[in-house]
């Protein structure tokens, strides 16, 4: 607080003091409102980020003090861990299989749901229902669906004369099976995003195109798809980030099997941290994944200019 100069107390000084008091009160008010969240972020996110960075350079079982080993974890990941390489391959396979199917199917469903017919909300609800279902229930049902001898999938296939594989026990078919489940569950969210985008495309543009003689297919290809590219871009990024981190599906349905054929990145990370007591190693995996995801997202961001159309 400024000491009063040997001048007479002026209105300006009083005003200044009151402003300072008010400003301080406003600051304290603001800080109080955001305190829970800021404290939370510092304690549960910022501090853990630092700990995690340090942990990735250690050998640590979480109970005993960590042992600093420098970049050893990363060297092992890059050269010396065949299982890690397998999980990366599996995860990439899974991701590449899931994303296009999910987005294309979501677009198709969004187009259907965009029709102005009665009861359209019922269909939208049906297509979205798997998205709100928990992964354990989903895993249960599909586990039995894919049963080689008595499951619904092979049962239906046999009706059309196809002899279905062993799915979850078959090295070649386990990831495709997981992709099917993942697409089934995941399509609801992109569908809603694309539906919102479709509804934002003004009817005038489509009618103008119809006047010019464009049929439905041409309208879709030349008008709707380009105008939806921002949504597709958003979905490509978010779906990649979430598909890469798949966990629950594998945990419930296959536990990484048969063998390690469906072991994915986060599942292996989880095993390292909580089953093998290698928390330092798992932290290194986590940071490696962050770098990978950031790099892919960055590349997607840069490619944006080439194909995303912002009206």
């Amino acid at each position, binding site marked *: 607080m400024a000491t009063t100069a040997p001048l007479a107390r002026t209105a300006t000084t009083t005003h200044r003091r009151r402003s300072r008091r008010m400003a301080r009160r406003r600051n304290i008010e603001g800080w109080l*409102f955001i305190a829970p969240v800021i404290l939370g*972020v510092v304690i549960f996110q910022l501090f853990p980020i630092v700990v995690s960075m340090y942990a990735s350079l250690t050998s640590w079982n979480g109970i005993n003090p960590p042992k600093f080993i420098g970049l050893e974890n990363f060297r092992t990941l890059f050269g010396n861990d065949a299982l890690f390489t397998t999980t990366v391959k599996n995860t990439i396979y899974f991701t590449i299989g899931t994303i296009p199917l999910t987005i294309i199917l979501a677009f198709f469903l969004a187009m259907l749901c965009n029709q102005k017919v009665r009861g359209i909300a019922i269909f939208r609800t049906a297509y979205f229902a798997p998205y*709100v279902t928990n992964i354990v229930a989903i895993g*249960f049902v599909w586990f*039995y669906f894919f049963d080689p001898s008595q499951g619904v999938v092979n049962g239906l296939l046999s009706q059309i004369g196809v002899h279905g594989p062993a799915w979850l026990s078959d090295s070649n078919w386990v990831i495709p099976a997981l992709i099917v489940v993942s697409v089934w569950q995941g399509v609801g969210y992109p569908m809603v995003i694309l539906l919102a985008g479709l509804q934002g495309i003004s009817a005038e543009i489509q009618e103008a195109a119809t006047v010019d*003689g464009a049929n439905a297919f041409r309208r879709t290809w030349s008008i709707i798809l380009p105008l939806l590219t921002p949504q597709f871009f*958003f979905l490509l990024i978010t779906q990649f980030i979430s598909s890469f981190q798949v966990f629950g599906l594998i945990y*419930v349905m296959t536990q990484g099997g048969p063998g390690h054929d469906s072991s994915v990145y986060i599942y292996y990370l989880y095993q390292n941290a909580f089953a093998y007591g290698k928390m330092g190693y798992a932290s290194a995996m986590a940071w490696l994944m962050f770098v990978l995801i950031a790099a892919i997202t960055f590349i997607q961001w840069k490619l944006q200019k080439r194909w995303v159309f912002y009206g």
Partner: protein
Amino acid sequence: MTVATERRGAVSLTSGRSIGTARRVRQSGPKALLYVVMIVIAVGFLLPLIWMISSSLKPEADVLTVPPSFIPKHPQWSNYSKVFDIIPRYFFNSVKLAVYNVLGVLITSSLAGFAFARLRFAGRNLFFTLLLSTAIIPGIIYLIPQYIIFSKIGWIDTHYPLWVPRVFTPVFATFLMRQSFMTLPQELEDAGRIDGASTFTIYLKVMLPQTKPSLAAIGMFTFLESWNDLFGPIIYLSSAKLETLPVAMAEFQGEYFSEVSLLMAAATVSVVPVLLVYLLTQRFFIQGITMTGLRG
């Protein structure tokens, strides 16, 4: 724009007919086709869930049959009485955590969102940027340090790790609430201040009630996240009595793996609450998704 010269069917573009009429004439046949397609797809989508419910009502022998059947011949509810004997504890845990999470997130995110939107204070932009910057980091990075922190303070095998972190780091929710508060007119706030209301009262009685759609959307998402959470309970809980429903079910499978109908009953019970809430609040839910998605 190049003018396409393709014509479609018998529609004449040179006639005096307005476009609207032309379209209407074309659509009565395709409309029925549309319904058929959508119904087929809807059935396909709901098939697993239908099977789940119907299997829960069948005697065990009828569940995994070839060819598969989707309607139980004689529905029996015995599985459900067995399930209800076993699950009350887990159901209660799931509900308890859902309530803590939803209320907690709504409180912390609306307080912070309000401040970021409408109050002026030192460091406002800095703190907001700080909040957003953590959103890029995948949750898995926090996981191990959080686990270690919690084990040092004795929170392992308690419910705390399943709501405290989420309630105090509501990044998306704060962002949404801030958007929502920002759209409210200044006159609303001014009127409150003229009446001598404190800032907190303005937040609670004047502005918060105007943000109900955002609150509903956030509530829905948080409920969903909490109820369906698998990772958290797997890692932090070991006592059976603390388990949440989905995780308890996962353990079920080990014990009751030969009784598929029982498992399906348990699965149905775990899904019904969420489906009910979803069906009742769909509009807000869908709105919420489009809010978190792209703007405009």
